[in-house]
């Protein structure tokens, strides 16, 4: 139902999930319990017993004074920049981008010093800078920031954004770090704090294993319980060297009675013998009976042969900190852990007894997504903790000097800021993850949006992980089935489906008490027939009527409340799992949920009147959710449901209905028209290529200075539209053009997917684009007061070019706009101070400065587009020069339709050489018919028919997945227009003038220009630079490198017996050198040409018997390196025979 989909997007941005998550992280007025505040409140510095949110100074050096620092409210300001001269002003994202600044806000925290129990005046101190997500609540571009008027229309808001030099359609959701835009990639991970049981194959025998990824406050630890072949239950604890028997661990945790242990595990009589065997083994073999015995056993296992004191500490740290940290890290929580371990063991035994199936790791109910807010939370916690530790240390130092204690003077905000900015700038996150923050893909609008909706899996790409890569049924409607990269990362990197919501979580303690009110009872004895009730993976109790409980929870959720009527939340999902007779209730964060219509008596509750009000904007999507017409379903709850695809498919007993089948696709595959007519891999390829297409990436392209940017000159809306396009603004930021395409062979120039273009079409502007590259230079300062100078270098300067090289520069050493520049032309003249370790001939003449001008990249050319001179954060002069070049399609440029049909230009034909019809209309493009049948891209053919009908009738055609206009309709339309319904036309041979014997299929289809263009790849080298170390040619196009003549190529020449060619390639054209070698048979070292021009051996002093030897420099280098290891290689020369 497209009205509902439209209503969703009228209130939410396409990257809403990122924004909502970050807003939840930020402390704002409407978010008093922000994640940042929660981190502050729960921080604990030092000992385990210390109170949270308070820093207690170690004051043993003073007398009896006790000093506590209480941490109060945290606030985050709006982004500002602090100039080098100390002035501050409000920062706009565009200024940050242009001046290489970080778009960040100051963080303030309230500190209260409590001296001997007496509170001092609270002190609000800046503790660091926080990079701000663009368009988030603290961003200067946020709606409410730009105007007090809350009812700003979209148009007015857009105007305001334009005044701030922004593209009004920019989605936001990224950060600006040192001038570069970075997006935080959402992470998919196994859900924490859940017991997952599975069979694990060890030495050919399957073994039941239960695993828990226990997580608390960013600390993760895996605990596993295995049921071994011999019947023993063994636990592996992180940080512990070996596995330990479960019973001993439970005992060590304070459960000393065997009866209690048995009770904690057993739920079925058949388990008794296993448990009894374990208990006996523990008592008899290991001789462990009491808590002390157990602890001693652990001490022996974990820290053998160390001092008693140390052993105790080690065991304590393992069982309190590393074992199941989500249950707490205090001594008091040990018994809780023991009970929990018992339940893990029970799950293992249940699996063993086939009472339950193993858990599916790839089931989306077992996955959680970490969004930008979660990632920032982890980062901030670590950074803030280290800041507070630093503060504590600094304050303790100050006390000893008996000065008045002030937080402001002791805190070092850089500790926090640098840590956060460094992580965001490099992507190296806390916890050792890398690639978390990535450079935002700005190739086109679609690539940006898709990048912000991407989800990566932590699984390594080198291993197969077949199951993890497969499309899982529970991904339906949550993740796009088609949009994933090909190759290495296939199936591991995913993208969100069109309409999803990532849960933000709801307090489970509140929920727990509500559930107890609803008839859930605490467990008194373990053996019972009543259904177990799990809340977020924890067994909280039992209930006699599970179905009734589930129903009433659902009912209350649909009424918009669950815990307390005043606190509205629909974050709860519930399921009754009959197999294990348990009610599973989830309210945690990171679950991917999708919306569904609720069916009641085979009918959804959206009336036609409501539909109309939706269209009129009288009611919103949120209203539908509040009224229980639509509800958000997670993968767990969906297992309980029976969902109709559409109204026609409703059968009795069905519980829900899809919003619209098209929303299962993501943003990029949603652009493909008629995807249901294509073979699946082609949609995947099509959605991959949409991200490489050139178009109108952003409307502020003349202001932005991206290091590389592309712009298509005449972007067009596709004739075949899809619904998705409205939500990703594809029609306002398009990425392609509608081509008239004929499918036929043409002199073989379109073999193997090559394309034939009409020269006249190209000359009229088809497929034209501009490539923009920005060069930037900073006037750096060096130690010793020396600095770079942007100027026209003096001829005296070392390495100065000829005078002509600088003629394009102005007096200030910087080029002007609209200059025509070619490869290696100087854009900015610059000199740098001499290098520190440079040889100097004498001490009298001052050392010469070096030439370090900035030049256009070799083999690139264009016009200087803009020149910007500004000041960077450190007050250094920063110059940015943008060079643009027009890219007219040429042979070798890559184009693709939306159906994964890609090809490179093989021939550009003159207009008179193009086949034509009776009116003389030639195609823009001729593709090969062989591209179609084996790839089964039927939608490609359909699009050509639809595009033809649409362009003749002057209307856009709807090609939305599953619901687009029907093929028959398009054919009928073509027929009415006087065409053949097949789309075929009579064409004439342009050379002989005769009618072609077959009719040619011709239509209009959307083609994208991809950013792989020959001009950026073409590479030749005859002579060129060599590496300093090895004197071999450099590698890579950007360094004008050579192409490696490798081993296999060498083998080939050996086989041919062309020794001189081998010598030519490997020596003369590579690193061949002449070395002088001492001919003294007792010496044989490398000789040298000394200052007086005499050949002399520096080792034996020989001067007469020295001979030139041709060898590769790599060999000489090897000799030198061996020498450094005290291996002196001698060369014994002999005459050639």
């Amino acid at each position: 139902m497209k009205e509902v989909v439209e209503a969703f997007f009228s209130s939410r941005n396409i990257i809403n999930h990122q924004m909502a998550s970050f807003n939840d992280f930020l402390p704002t007025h409407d978010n008093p319990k922000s994640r940042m505040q929660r981190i502050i409140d729960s921080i604990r510095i030092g000992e385990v017993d210390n109170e949270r949110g308070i820093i207690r100074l170690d004051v043993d050096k003073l007398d009896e004074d006790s000093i506590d620092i209480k941490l109060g409210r945290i606030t985050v300001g709006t982004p500002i920049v602090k100039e080098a001269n100390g002035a501050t002003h409000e920062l706009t994202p565009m200024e940050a981008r242009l001046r290489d600044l970080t778009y960040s806000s100051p963080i303030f925290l309230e500190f209260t010093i409590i001296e001997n129990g007496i509170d001092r005046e609270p002190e609000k101190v800046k503790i660091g800078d926080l990079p701000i997500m663009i368009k988030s609540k603290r961003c200067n571009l946020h709606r409410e920031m730009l105007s007090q008027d809350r009812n700003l229309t979209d148009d007015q808001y857009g105007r305001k954004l334009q005044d701030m030099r922004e593209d009004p359609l920019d989605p936001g959701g990224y950060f600006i770090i040192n001038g570069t835009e970075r997006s935080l990639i959402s992470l998919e991970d196994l859900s924490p704090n859940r017991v997952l049981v599975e069979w694990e194959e060890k030495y050919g025998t399957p073994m039941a294993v239960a695993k828990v990824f226990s997580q608390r406050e960013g600390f993760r630890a895996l605990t596993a319980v295995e049921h071994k072949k011999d019947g023993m239950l063994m636990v592996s604890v992180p940080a512990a060297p070996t596995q330990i028997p479960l019973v001993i661990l439970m005992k060590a945790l304070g459960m000393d009675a065997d009866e209690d242990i048995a009770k904690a595990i057993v739920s079925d009589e058949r388990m008794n013998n296993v448990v009894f065997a374990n208990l006996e083994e523990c008592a008899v073999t290991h001789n462990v009976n009491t808590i002390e015995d157990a602890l001693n056993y652990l001490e022996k296992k974990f820290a053998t042969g160390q001092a008693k004191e140390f052993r105790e500490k080690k065991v304590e740290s393992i069982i309190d900190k590393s074992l199941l940290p989500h249950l707490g890290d205090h001594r008091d929580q040990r018994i809780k852990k023991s009970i929990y371990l018992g339940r893990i063991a029970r799950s293992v035994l249940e699996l063993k007894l086939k009472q339950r199936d193993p858990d599916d790791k790839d089931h989306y109910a077992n996955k959680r997504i970490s969004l930008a807010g979660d990632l920032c939370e982890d980062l901030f916690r670590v950074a803030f903790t280290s800041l507070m530790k630093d503060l504590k240390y600094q304050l303790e130092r100050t006390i000893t000097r008996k000065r008045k204690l002030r937080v402001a003077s002791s805190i070092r905000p850089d500790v926090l800021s640098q840590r956060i900015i460094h992580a965001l700038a490099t992507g190296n996150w806390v916890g050792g993850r890398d690639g978390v923050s990535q450079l935002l893909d700005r190739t086109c609008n679609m690539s940006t949006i898709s990048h912000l909706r991407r989800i990566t899996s932590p699984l390594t790409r080198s291993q197969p992980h077949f199951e993890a890569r497969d499309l899982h049924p529970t991904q339906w409607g949550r993740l796009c089935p088609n949009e994933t990269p090909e190759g290495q990362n296939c199936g591991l990197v995913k993208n969100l489906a069109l309409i999803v919501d990532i849960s933000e979580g709801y307090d489970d303690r509140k929920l727990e008490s509500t559930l107890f009110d609803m008839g859930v009872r605490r467990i008194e004895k373990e053996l019972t027939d009543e259904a177990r009730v799990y809340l977020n993976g924890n067994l909280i109790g039992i209930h006699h009527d599970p179905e009734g409980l589930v129903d009433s929870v659902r009912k209350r959720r649909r009424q918009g409340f669950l815990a307390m009527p005043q606190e509205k939340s629909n974050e709860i999902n519930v399921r009754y799992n009959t197999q294990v007779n348990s009610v599973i209730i989830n309210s945690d964060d990171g679950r991917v949920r999708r919306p569904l219509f609720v069916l009641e008596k085979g009918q959804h509750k959206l009336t036609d009147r409501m539909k109309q009000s939706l269209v009129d904007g009288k009611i919103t999507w949120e209203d539908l959710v509040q009224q229980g017409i639509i509800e958000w379903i997670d993968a767990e709850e969906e297992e309980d449901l029976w969902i109709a695809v559409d109204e026609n498919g409703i059968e009795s007993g069905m519980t829900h209905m899809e919003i619209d089948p098209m929303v299962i696709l993501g943003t990029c595959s949603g652009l493909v028209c008629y995807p249901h007519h294509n073979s699946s891999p082609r949609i995947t390829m099509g959605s991959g290529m949409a991200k490489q297409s050139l178009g109108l990436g952003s409307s502020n392209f003349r202001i932005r200075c991206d290091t590389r940017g592309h712009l298509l000159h005449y972007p067009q809306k596709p004739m075949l539209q899809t619904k998705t396009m409205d939500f990703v603004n594809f029609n306002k930021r398009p990425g392609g053009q509608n081509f008239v395409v004929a499918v036929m062979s043409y002199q073989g120039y379109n073999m193997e997917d090559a394309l034939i273009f009409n020269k006249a079409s190209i000359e009229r502007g088809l497929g034209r684009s501009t490539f923009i590259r920005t060069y930037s230079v900073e006037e750096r300062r060096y130690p010793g007061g020396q600095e770079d100078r942007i100027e026209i270098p003096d001829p005296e300067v070392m390495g100065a070019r000829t005078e002509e090289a600088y003629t394009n520069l102005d007096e200030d050493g910087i080029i002007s706009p609209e200059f025509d520049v070619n490869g290696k032309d100087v854009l900015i003249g610059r000199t740098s101070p001499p290098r520190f370790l440079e040889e100097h001939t004498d001490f009298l003449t001052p050392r010469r400065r070096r030439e370090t001008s900035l030049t256009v990249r070799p083999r690139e050319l264009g016009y200087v587009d803009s020149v910007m001179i500004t000041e960077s954060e450190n007050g250094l002069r920063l110059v940015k020069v943008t060079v643009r070049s027009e890219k007219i399609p040429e042979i070798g440029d890559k184009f693709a339709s939306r159906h994964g049909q890609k090809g490179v230009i093989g021939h550009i034909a003159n207009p008179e050489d193009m086949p034509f019809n009776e009116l003389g209309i030639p195609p823009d493009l001729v593709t090969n018919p062989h591209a179609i049948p084996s790839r089964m891209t039927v939608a490609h053919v359909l699009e050509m028919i639809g595009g033809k009908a649409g362009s003749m009738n002057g209307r856009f055609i709807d090609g939305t997945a599953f619901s687009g206009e029907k093929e028959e309709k398009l054919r009928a339309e073509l027929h009415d227009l006087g065409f053949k319904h097949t789309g075929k036309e009579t064409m004439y041979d342009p050379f002989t003038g005769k009618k072609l014997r077959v009719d040619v299929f011709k239509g209009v289809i959307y083609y994208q220009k991809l950013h792989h263009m020959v001009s950026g790849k073409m590479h030749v080298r005859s002579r060129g630079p060599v590496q300093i170390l090895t004197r071999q040619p450099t590698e890579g196009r950007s360094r004008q490198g050579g192409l490696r003549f490798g081993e296999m190529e060498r083998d080939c020449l050996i086989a041919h017996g062309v020794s001189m060619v081998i010598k030519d390639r490997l020596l003369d054209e590579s690193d061949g050198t002449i070395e002088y070698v001492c001919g003294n048979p007792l010496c044989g070292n490398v000789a040298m040409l000394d200052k007086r021009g005499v050949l002399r051996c520096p080792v034996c002093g020989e001067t007469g018997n020295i001979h030139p030897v041709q060898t590769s420099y790599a060999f000489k280098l090897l000799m030198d390196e061996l020498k450094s290891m005290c291996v002196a290689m001698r060369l014994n020369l002999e005459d050639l025979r």
Partner: protein
Amino acid sequence: MKLVVRELTDTRCSFIVDNVRPDVVNTLRRELIAHVPKMAIDEVEFHMGPIRDEEGNEYDSNSALFDEMIAHRLSMIPIPTDLEQFTFKDQCECEGSGCPHCTIIYVMNKKGPCTVYSGDLQPLGDMNLKIKQELIPIVKLKEKQALLIYATAILGKGRSHAKWQPVTICGYMNYPKLKVNNDAKADDLEAIVKSFPEGVLKLDKNKITVKDIKPLETKDPMYYDTPILDSVDGSGKKVIEIGYEDEKFVFNFETDGAVPAKNALIYALNHLSDKFEALRDDISGLDKA
């Protein structure tokens, strides 16, 4: 060879040629596309730096589009070209230095906010050279933006660039002919008659006759070749068989308005005969050698 003109306007021409081989018509088509010259803007000089108006307001010589894009857009504007008046620059008596016989210089001076149209190009000298299609948008200027341009148009041929191609589309079809098989059985003769344009076929006493084939000149009759033309008795025959004359063509072409269709055709025909003449001369030269 007989040539009958069906339709002739400034931008459009359609005629019927009879008694001619397809390669000859094709030669004419290729000649029209590639070798009929036209004036088009070839060089654009942009004023750089600030532009002042009479009141002393200062404008920036800048716009939303890149200079090369504006130049390309200007080059696409059809310039009225009298083929008698202009010669190619390299063949001109001015020896390529540029004179009123081979070049036109246009000036454009616009200050924002406004939309710049093709009509804003002012020729230096002869006002007859003003652009006829005045409302081709070039670029929008915002406040403080201005455009001061000198554009030079010269004569060229479509062979070297599409901007010099006055004949935008050009094609032909073999002249259609219809054969009626009145012995073939058909379901609905009425429908068959109706599936062709009015006046082509006539139904009289269950017999179809071809009345007038002229209406089929506008469109290839293959588009009327529908399944209802198939005989129902399974003989594989068609009630109406569509065929084509081998040496008779309907020829269509359109121009962009720079050169009238008639002039383009005359130029192409003359040029063709010149070429053949030259070829004949060359061949006769071969004989002597």
